[in-house]
């Protein structure tokens, strides 16, 4: 199964996972990491350990981050650079994460990533009441 790492500031990731669990039930094969208070160096060591087990079983791993250009994104990209089975997706939102949980067993890694980008956008819409 394609594994996930939720890597965000503060409690954002934890809240996303908890919210998703209320919709699709308990989530497996997912690590939740908060970058708050961690130096780039310590965060890199921590992530490196997390993806090592994926290397051993040759499993793909997708790292979710909030902001492209944020500290978690930089560190995650440095990890993905040296691990061909690891990718980083930024701009995580609830539709994207739910789509990951529902579709990760039926799609290939590259198909899944493409699908997540589509589904993340699909959830963005604006409703305005009568003026």
């Amino acid at each position, binding site marked *: 199964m394609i594994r996930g790492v939720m890597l965000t*500031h503060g409690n954002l990731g934890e809240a996303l996972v908890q919210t998703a669990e209320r919709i699709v039930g308990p989530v497996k094969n997912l690590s939740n990491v908060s970058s708050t*208070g*961690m*130096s*780039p*160096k*310590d965060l890199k060591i921590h992530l490196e350990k997390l993806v090592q087990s994926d290397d051993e079983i040759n499993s793909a791993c997708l790292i979710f981050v*909030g*902001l*492209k*250009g*944020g*500290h978690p*994104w*930089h560190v995650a*990209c*440095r990890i993905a*650079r040296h691990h061909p089975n690891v990718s980083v997706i*930024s701009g995580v939102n609830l539709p994207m994460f739910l789509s990951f949980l529902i579709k990760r067993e039926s799609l290939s890694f590259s198909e899944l990533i493409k699908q997540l980008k589509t589904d993340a956008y699909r959830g963005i819409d604006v409703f305005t009441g009568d003026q």
Partner: protein
Amino acid sequence: MPFALVRIDDRLIHGQVVVGWVHAVRPDRIILCNDDVANSEWERDLYLNSYTDADVKIDVMSADEAIAYLKSPAFEKEKVILLVESPKDAWTLIEKGAPITNINVGGMHYKENAKEITSYIFVSEEDIKYLNLFHEKGIKIEARDVPNSKSYDLIERLNKMVRK
């Protein structure tokens, strides 16, 4: 033009800078000054790819390149945020003639044998040495992570901690 912001932050460019500070300061340019990043094409591209929703130029420069820019006419016309990784790197620029009068410290995260000043500032003996050098030079050093949070005099904090 005097710097809009000179910031010590071990994360260099990241959310607090590209979103928080950019909107508070509205700079024309962000200069990430770090020799390691400047010397690695991959690292440089990584930082240059950072998201920002504002119209701001981002540059990665080595210390020498930054000094050359600071002495150029372009610097006189531009509002600049200068980012360095550590007090040591800021001191290198000051010694090379960078006109720095104020320093914001926004991120010096936990490392071994460093003392905690705030949740985002841990200082080693070496850091303290450089912070005192800034102080002796009359440079004001504040601790503040984001623009709308409280600003602390870092030297005052440091002195209080040493006295404890």
